[in-house]
């Protein structure tokens, strides 16, 4: 009999199942490995005083209190600027600009290019504009503003997608009920688009809080307690970078700081989706 062996459906099914599962296992495995590495090396250093005191001996000893505060301030400045601008731009793009209009395409293309620009370029741009030209110097304000420039493209596109994913039916039926565009926007589209908005927000905060290149050139790396937004302030990721690259014997605290950063990211991620869910359930009642 001729050799006409055919891969049975059962066997090919088995292969693809294996492939899919091992790909997923690989990704999860890497994440767990990194997490385990950080936790195992960093957990023993974590204490209340580590979180609240100033660093000593260039970070080899002492805590990360001022660094935490600076990080939160930088992120707050970033969000305070990028949220309103991002939301307004997303509304303009999705609700007031036809998808194929020249203006819309131009803005969207610019945003896509901007979101691909390496962060170091944003860092140098922020240094030239905010620190030098606008005279803000190395400060938390400059850092936050530069970060805002960096996360805006991401935030706008995610929010715009959120608005676009709201079915056209809602807009038509609201219009047929004589509802104005603005109240349709506030009462209907905004609640319905919130999941997209939250995704954009979480991604933005994640990028902002983990950013180093942008902040080295704008908010600087002074690790004292910041007294105002005009002070230079060192963020968590810069602290990690500095400890692991420039300070011999800083590894232990670098691990501990990484652990704080990872936990912070997880907490932000979970609380924002929890809040969105709660808020959403009050406003939007799906099945």
């Amino acid at each position, binding site marked *: 009999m001729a050799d006409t062996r055919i891969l049975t459906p059962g066997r090919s099914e088995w292969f693809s199942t294996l492939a899919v599962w091992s790909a997923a296992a690989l990704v999860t495995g890497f994440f767990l490995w990194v997490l385990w590495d950080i936790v195992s090396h960093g957990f023993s250093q974590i204490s209340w005083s580590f979180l609240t005191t100033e660093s000593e001996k260039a970070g080899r000893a002492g805590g990360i209190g001022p660094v935490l505060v600076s990080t939160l301030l930088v992120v707050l400045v970033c969000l305070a600027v990028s949220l309103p601008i991002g939301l307004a731009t997303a509304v303009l793009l999705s609700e007031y600009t036809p998808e194929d209009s020249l203006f819309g395409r131009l803005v969207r293309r610019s945003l896509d290019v901007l979101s691909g620009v390496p962060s170091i370029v944003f860092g140098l741009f922020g240094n030239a504009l905010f620190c030098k030209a606008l005279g803000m110097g190395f400060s938390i304000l400059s850092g936050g503003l530069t970060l805002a420039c960096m996360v805006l493209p991401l935030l706008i596109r995610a929010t715009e997608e959120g608005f676009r994913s709201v079915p056209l*039916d*809602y807009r038509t*039926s609201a*219009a*047929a009920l*004589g509802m104005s565009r603005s109240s349709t926007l506030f009462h209907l589209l905004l609640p319905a688009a919130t999941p997209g908005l939250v995704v954009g927000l979480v991604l933005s905060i994640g990028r902002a809080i983990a950013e180093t290149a942008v902040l080295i050139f704008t908010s600087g790396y002074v690790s004292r307690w910041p007294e105002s937004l005009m002070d230079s302030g060192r963020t968590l990721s810069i602290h990690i970078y500095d400890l692991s690259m420039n300070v011999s014997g800083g590894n232990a605290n670098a691990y501990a700081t990484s652990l704080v950063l990872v936990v912070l990211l997880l907490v932000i991620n979970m609380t924002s989706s929890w809040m969105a869910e709660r808020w959403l359930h009050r406003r939007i*009642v799906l*099945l």
Partner: protein
Amino acid sequence: MSVSPTSVCPPSLDREICCAPNTYIETQNLRLDYKSKTAFQDVSLSVGKGCITALVGPSGCGKTSFLTCLNRLTDLIPNATVTGVIKVDGQDILGRNVDVLQLRRRVGMIFQKPNPFPLSIWRNMELPLREHGVNDKAQLKSEIEAALKSVGLWDEVKDRLNGPALALSGGQQQRLCIARALTLTPDVLLMDEPCSALDPLSSGIVEDLIISLRNRYTVIIVTHNLAQARRIADSVAIFWVQDGSGRLIESGPTKQIFETPTDPLTASYISGSRG
């Protein structure tokens, strides 16, 4: 012929006759162009006050497009241009200085697919009312209750007003949409195949509801169901595709259209041999 002078159409076979004298909506040479296609042209139609007028005809002949002109939903469609005249209660509604939001309040619309908002039942009813300036809690409550009662939905939903509107059945959703439109006390209701997405039972309920709207509202209903048109409509307008765009080929009292149509196309459509 014994037609009462109070212009209330008696539910008799003669009812269509009492509708005719009081024209409420009138179009003259109405034409709608999309970017590269003419949806319909040359439509001149009078719609009697308090009557149910059915628009029938094969798919793609411009019936739904015609409806969307009457409450200027066409404004939302990029590159749609409406030419001609539409008068509602004697007022030209295509002018630049027409308050479109007020127009849509007076000319409500029900869509083919029930489209409640993804909100609670209460919020669905409340939102348009608040939009039009009703903010008093007690007034909101009484108007919402009245509207839900008028569509026979109150008893079915009164215990779950804060539940999701999308959890209702298709027929209930459609009645909710009708109630939502009725809270704004419109003069006119445009209905775009309101029963076609519903099962026969719900369809029957909604149909009875539409019949109950006669005399109180001027109803224009698009339907593919000729039997339904014959059952509920006072007058019928037949649309047809000619030379690539929709046209109105005949209109008149239901009885006349179904029994003695003048246009041969109407005759063949009615008899089921065309369309």
